[in-house]
């Protein structure tokens, strides 16, 4: 049975590669390549540092073991929906006992890129700590027990949560968490590298009480067994190893019980959280949006912005970029000029970039618009209205925060007018691009990196770059006026306010007219472009 399950895992890996198109294969290859430096980096860290800095040995091993253990707990939860081999309920119809499954799935879990990288990294500890003699057996055993802790702990947690992980709400949450964790991980690496440079021996001493406390956790016990075994304290090492092994057994028992429950309990009906029927229009905007098809489209776009995980992620990233700008200005003394408030219009520019494929999230559901015979001009206007509202709010917020940092309150109205002009102008360009070069965005909320196999990724990239450049060129007159105002003649800034708004509005009307004129006769073609599946 174990052999069959290992075979299944290998077949899934192989078919995953065969089914994916070349960008996904490149992604998988890059993922594997990213795993290699981590594996060999971990190996070198554990192999070399304890020899060079014996005092740091235990803390280092404890930290690495704990991190690896947490990583094994967390990452499968995040990739649950994308990895068929992780879901035990797929085996529920086979006549298998939980004991057989635990054995088989444990072995299958040892197959793959992640287990291989983990073993290579942990293998460094054997090189770093082992000395010839009976201690060596304990060092190797400690590494294997740590590996077993990762595998069994990860599967036990996953199986216990598998019902919850299959829910739509959990999958939505995972998408947001993955992106925030990826950004957080990047930030933690930067901060960690800076801190490591400043680390002194005395700081290590300060960490010792923490290390002592963490040493009682199962990975900590394995780490202590490894260090003690390497230093010849065999009795202590054996006791600690027994403790870590007991943890593996307990986790295995939890896994076995969870499997038994998952395989024999009916899936609970999805709990539907009924919202208070509040109407399509968000309450604060009820008076602001027109009560017709334009308002309906704008309200739908705003509802999607609040409810679709991918759109939420887009907003989280935009806000972080804005915050990054503020942080940069705050910490850079040379940039604390009041006129920096005008940089808030970058937010308007960035916000409008999301509109270059305004119909992408509609996908095949765009048939609703087509069959309703809705006026294409009204449809585009509604979408622009939503982008305008969110873009203006984000720009205003950034301008206010920058003004608070630099004291440039006088520049806030100018920044707002420029922001509105930039948004309008960019939306004009986006209206033409998004009807002529539409492509469907993946609706699969389970995988953040899912790409639609449209085979036009290159064309999309070129079109977006051209649109970006066109927006930049059209912006030049406004930027020139601002530059004149800042450098030569300050009243030009006052002049720039109405000029930017009027110029932006004019270009928006031109873009809207061109986009709507094309769309009027080509709604079925746009629907075909947005539908990945052809009718048969």
């Amino acid at each position, binding site marked *: 049975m174990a052999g069959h399950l290992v075979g299944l895992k290998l077949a899934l890996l192989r078919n995953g590669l065969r089914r994916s198109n070349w960008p996904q294969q490149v992604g998988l290859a890059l993922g594997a390549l990213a795993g290699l430096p981590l594996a060999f980096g971990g190996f070198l860290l554990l192999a070399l540092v304890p020899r060079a800095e014996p005092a740091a040995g235990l803390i280092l091993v404890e930290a690495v073991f704990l991190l690896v253990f947490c990583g094994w707990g967390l990452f499968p939860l995040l990739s649950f929906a994308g990895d068929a081999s992780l879901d035990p309920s797929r085996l529920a119809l086979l006549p298998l006992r939980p004991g057989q499954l635990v054995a088989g799935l444990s072995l299958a879990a040892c197959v793959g890129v992640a287990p291989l990288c983990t073993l290579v990294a942990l293998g460094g500890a054997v090189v770093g700590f082992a000395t010839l003699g009976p201690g060596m057996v304990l060092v190797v055993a400690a590494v294997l027990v740590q590996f077993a802790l990762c595998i069994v702990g990860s599967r036990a947690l996953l199986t216990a949560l598998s019902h919850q992980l299959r829910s739509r709400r959990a999958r939505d949450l995972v998408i947001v968490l993955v992106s925030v964790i990826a950004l957080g991980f990047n930030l933690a690496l930067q901060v960690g590298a800076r801190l490591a440079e400043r680390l002194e021996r005395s700081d290590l001493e300060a960490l010792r009480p923490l290390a002592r406390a963490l040493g009682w956790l199962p990975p900590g016990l394995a780490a202590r067994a490894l260090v003690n075994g390497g230093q010849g304290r065999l009795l202590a090492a054996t006791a600690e190893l027994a403790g870590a092994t007991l943890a593996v057994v307990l986790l295995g028992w939890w896994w076995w019980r969870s499997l038994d429950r998952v395989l024999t309990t009916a899936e609970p009906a999805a709990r539907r959280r009924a919202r208070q*029927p509040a109407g399509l229009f968000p309450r604060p905007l009820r008076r602001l949006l027109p*009560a017709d*098809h334009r308002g309906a*489209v704008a309200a739908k776009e705003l509802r999607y912005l609040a*409810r679709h995980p991918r759109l939420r992620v887009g907003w989280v990233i935009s806000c972080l970029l804005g915050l990054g700008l503020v942080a940069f200005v705050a910490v850079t003394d040379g940039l604390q000029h009041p006129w920096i408030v005008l940089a808030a219009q970058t937010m308007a520019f960035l916000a409008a970039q999301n509109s270059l494929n305004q119909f992408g999230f509609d996908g095949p559901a765009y048939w*609703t618009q087509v069959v309703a015979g809705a006026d294409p001009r009204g449809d585009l206007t509604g979408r622009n209205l939503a982008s305008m509202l969110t873009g203006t709010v984000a720009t205003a917020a950034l301008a206010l925060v920058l003004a608070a940092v630099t004291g440039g309150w006088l520049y806030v109205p100018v920044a707002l007018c420029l922001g509105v002009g930039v948004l309008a102008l960019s939306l004009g360009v986006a209206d033409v691009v998004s009807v002529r070069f539409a492509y469907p965005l993946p609706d699969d909320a389970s995988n953040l990196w899912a790409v639609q196999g449209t085979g036009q990724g290159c064309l999309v990239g070129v079109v977006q770059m051209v649109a970006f450049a066109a927006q930049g060129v059209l912006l030049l007159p406004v930027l020139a006026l601002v530059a004149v105002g800042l450098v030569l003649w300050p009243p030009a800034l006052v002049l720039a306010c109405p000029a930017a708004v009027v110029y932006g509005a004019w270009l928006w009307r031109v873009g809207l007219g061109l986009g709507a004129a094309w769309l009027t006769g080509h709604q079925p073609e746009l629907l*075909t472009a947005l539908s990945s599946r*052809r*009718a*048969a």
Partner: protein
Amino acid sequence: MRGLRKAFGAKVAVAGIDLDIPHGCFFGLVGPNGAGKTTTLGMVTGLLRPDAGLVLIDGVQVWRDPVAAKRRIGVLPEDLRLFDRLTGAELLTYNGLLRGIPAPVVETRASELLAVLGLADAAGTLVVDYSHGMRKKIALASALLHAPRVLFLDEPFEAIDPVSARTIRGLLERYTAGGATVVFSSHVMELVERLCDRVGIMHLGRLIAEGPTDQVRAGRSLEDAFVELVGASHAGAEELGWLGTWSA
């Protein structure tokens, strides 16, 4: 429709169809998978541009004056891709406003439709959390919201529970009794036989039989007539002889 034709590359999905459907008729379009039913309905409803041919609905040419034609029709497509991050009630409001119905009228009609189709309790639930049957019902409600003269339904009874199916049947029968026309595709022959005045059988992109249901049946059950016309093959029983030997 006259000479309706559509090809995807080298594959001809619909190879020239001529068909008249009278007012107030309950018309069933049947055919095996891949016969071209969905493609035909797509071209008739203005969702898929035909390579050739003419479609007239209530005297309006669909591809010459699509807006006027779409005002007259309601559509329930097969693959049910909806704006599913809206709640059921929000989706109906959205559809109503798109069609230019005043907001208070949309609200009244939407709550009536939700009640009749048994979705009142789920009005505030996101459509993404609906079951397949509920999605069918909310899509049907969207198609009925503007009281169209002609309703095109692609597999409307698939994955619908018997109680809801009876409600929908009653609703559609009342609707055609009022002079409206319903065109629907289905694989369930008993249902087509029971509901439809007229029936069309499609095979390999062609309409191979069409007329009043009794005439097409010609004394047999519709299923027998269908299988005979389409020429289905019989699975050989001898190959699966092991099915009678139990494993445990």
